[in-house]
C-alpha cells in the first residue's frame, strides 16, 4: 500500500500526488510573478482604482456586489423552479406536519405493498 493512496475499486486517489501538483503550480505562479514589471511604485497614481471612469466611492459597501445579487442569472433562469421550491418552505408548522404525514403515507405504500 503506497502512502496516501486509496483504491476505489475502479481507480485510485493519491493525496501526495496532488500536493506535489499544487507545489508545482505554486512554483509556476511565483515564476510568472517574478517576471512582472519592476517599475511599480507604491503611493503613486499606479495604486488608484479604475472604476469605469467614475469617482471611486469612499465606503466599500457601495463598491461591493451584495450576496443577494450573486448568481443572479442562475436564479433568474431557474426562477420558476425556485418559486415552487421556495413556496414549499412556507414557514407554517401545519404544512410541515402535513408533509410529514404524507411522507409516512407514501413510504408505507411503498414498503407495505
Amino acid at each position, binding site marked *: 500500500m503506497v502512502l496516501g493512496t486509496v483504491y476505489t475499486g475502479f481507480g485510485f486517489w493519491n493525496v501526495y500526488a496532488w500536493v506535489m501538483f499544487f507545489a508545482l503550480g505554486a512554483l509556476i505562479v511565483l515564476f510568472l510573478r517574478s517576471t512582472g514589471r519592476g517599475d511599480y511604485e507604491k503611493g503613486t497614481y499606479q495604486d488608484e482604482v479604475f472604476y469605469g471612469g467614475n469617482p471611486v466611492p469612499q465606503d466599500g459597501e457601495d463598491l461591493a456586489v451584495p450576496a443577494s445579487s450573486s448568481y443572479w442569472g442562475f436564479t433568474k433562469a431557474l426562477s420558476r423552479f425556485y418559486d415552487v421550491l421556495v413556496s414549499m*418552505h*412556507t*414557514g*407554517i408548522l*401545519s404544512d410541515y*406536519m402535513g408533509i410529514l*404525514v404524507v411522507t409516512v403515507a407514501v413510504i408505507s405504500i411503498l414498503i407495505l405493498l
Partner: protein
Amino acid sequence: MINNIPMLTVGALFVIGLYGVLFKRNIIKIAIAVSIIESSTNLFLIVLGYRTGGSIPVYTLAGEFKKMVLPTPQALTLTAIVIGLATTALLLTLIMLLYKHYGTLDVHEIRRLRG
C-alpha cells in the same frame, strides 16, 4: 369486538390528535393535540401488555392469580409519561414566549423563518 375497544380507542385518540395538529390554527390547541397523541401512545403500550383477567405484575402482591399483565410496557409507559411531561412543559413555555414576541397564537402568522 369488545376486546378490540382499547385498540380502537388508541386509533381514535391518535386520529383526533393528528387532526388537531394538522388543522387547528391555535398553537395551544396544537400542543393539546400533541398531548392527545402522547396519551394514545401510552394507552397503546398499556393495552399491549394487558392480558384478560391478569393481576398486577408484582409477585408478592399478586396473590393466587396465575396470570399477570406484562410489567415491561407499564415501565415503558411510566417513562414515556415523564418524557411527555417534559416536552409538554417545554412546548407550553415556548408558546408563552412566542405570544410575548409575536402577539398572536395563530400558527399561520408565526412564519418569519421561511424560504
